[in-house]
């Protein structure tokens, strides 16, 4: 999830059809003197779904630095307010600081109005900040919460556009997760079904996308309660080594043994004291 500024990664999908489509497009573009923009991997799978009583946010826990896993268990679901949480994909520092700044401002706003903060307010604040920075803040967010008007879910893009939808996914694993949602999403699901759906969507991202991995974190937000389940599913537990490279004594049988004593004379002896003062 941590991207070195300026590094770009070419998106390589091994499925033939998309590669060939891309190749044709690239060829056509090159003819007219243009090159296709290199896609930027955001190394995450995050998603959210609105169910009967509220919203559920899900995220994987892998933080990448290029092709290396920097953190095997990082937390991508950020606190905005007691009733609003936000998943973040993209540059880790950007998602962390942006959500903290908006959380702080939202708390001031809530104290000033004397009311529980609304998800739409958080959405406004986030999009207006991201637009101001013209996409230089690499934060792709899934914002969800429950307020006086019910449950709400937004996806927010680095340039500042937002979508209000019943189910959203973001990050490099978003296609895998969205495939699961498009297959099995139904409006007004029960909490357990919705949890299972989100878990499966994130799992699809974890197992099929290299940029996502490790565990699945969930956050269930309803009118009365909040469940921050970290981890909900340890899908990639480190295994225990079954073999051992050490050989026990006696593996190689001893045939003969001869001991030669080295009789050495002390020729010179010098003592250097260490200055311990």
């Amino acid at each position, binding site marked *: 999830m941590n991207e070195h500024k300026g590094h770009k990664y070419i998106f390589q999908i091994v499925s033939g059809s998309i590669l060939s489509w891309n190749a044709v497009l690239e060829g056509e573009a090159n003819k007219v003197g243009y090159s296709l923009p290199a896609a930027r991997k955001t190394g995450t799978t995050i998603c959210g779904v609105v169910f009967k009583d509220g919203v559920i946010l899900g995220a994987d826990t892998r933080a990448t630095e290029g092709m290396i896993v920097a953190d095997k268990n990082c937390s991508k679901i950020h606190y905005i307010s007691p009733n609003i949480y936000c998943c973040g994909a993209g540059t880790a520092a950007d998602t962390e600081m942006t959500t*903290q*700044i908006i959380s*702080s*401002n939202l*708390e*001031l706003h809530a*104290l*000033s109005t004397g009311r529980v903060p609304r998800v739409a307010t958080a959405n406004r604040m986030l999009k207006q900040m991201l637009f101001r920075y013209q996409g230089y803040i690499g934060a792709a967010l899934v914002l969800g919460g429950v307020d006086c008007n019910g449950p709400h879910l937004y996806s927010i893009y680095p340039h500042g556009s937002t979508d209000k939808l019943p189910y959203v996914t973001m990050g490099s694993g978003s296609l895998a997760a969205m495939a699961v949602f498009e297959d099995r999403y139904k409006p007004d699901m029960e909490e357990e079904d919705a949890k299972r759906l989100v878990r499966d969507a994130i799992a699809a991202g974890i197992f099929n996308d290299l940029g996502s991995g490790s565990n699945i974190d969930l956050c269930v937000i309803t009118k009365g309660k909040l469940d921050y389940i970290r981890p909900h599913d340890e899908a990639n537990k480190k295994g225990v080594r079954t073999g051992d490279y050490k050989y026990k004594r006696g593996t190689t049988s001893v045939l003969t043994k001869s001991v030669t004593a080295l009789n050495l004379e002390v020729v010179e002896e010098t003592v250097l004291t260490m200055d311990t003062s």
Partner: protein
Amino acid sequence: MDTFCTVYCYAVSRSSPDICSLTRIYYDAGCDDLSFSASNGVVLATEKKQKSILYDEQSVHKVEPITKHIGMVYSGMGPDYRVLVRRARKLAQQYFLVYQEPIPTGQLVQRVASVMQEYTQSGGVRPFGVSLLIAGWDEDQPYLFQSDPSGAYFAWKATAMGKNYVNGKTFLEKRYNNDLELEDAIHTAILTLKESFEGQMTEENIEVGICNEAGFKRLTPAEVKDYLAAIA
């Protein structure tokens, strides 16, 4: 209690700013309020006398939360208080953004008092016409501070401010001891208020705030009514 401060008054003209005179600013005595630090929490209580029965009492509050774990109340000019509440809230958030930790009560008081002091030494402004009582809970301990218009701040176990602060303090001195529980503290605070209260004390014309390990909370009129019933 009349609070006064000396201030330089600037008469600024384009050509020559004139430091004209040393002025004494008198602020009108505020309403009574008092606070009490118990072993497991702090109580803030104040009277909220409205000038007419037509006032909507619930639209304006004297006891205000600053963060989840800190609250404050004032004696003096309401508008000045509003400004300080906003400042205090902002200071608390700024601290949190830097240190990722809820601001300790003492730190907040220091910063707020700093602001108040600034206004006694800057040009073109007048000192804040409020004395603040700031109550907070951090690291399993209750805290109570007072902040004056001069910028001086003090920590208290129990104190009273306002018109009848002398009587209030005497009453508290008699009744204070270190092992008081929060419930008893609330009871004592209301009794102390009643001492100097003119007229009937109802849940509409007093405000009570409590601060314990669960955080700061302004009591609803219904809750205040229960406590009032106990002393009736």
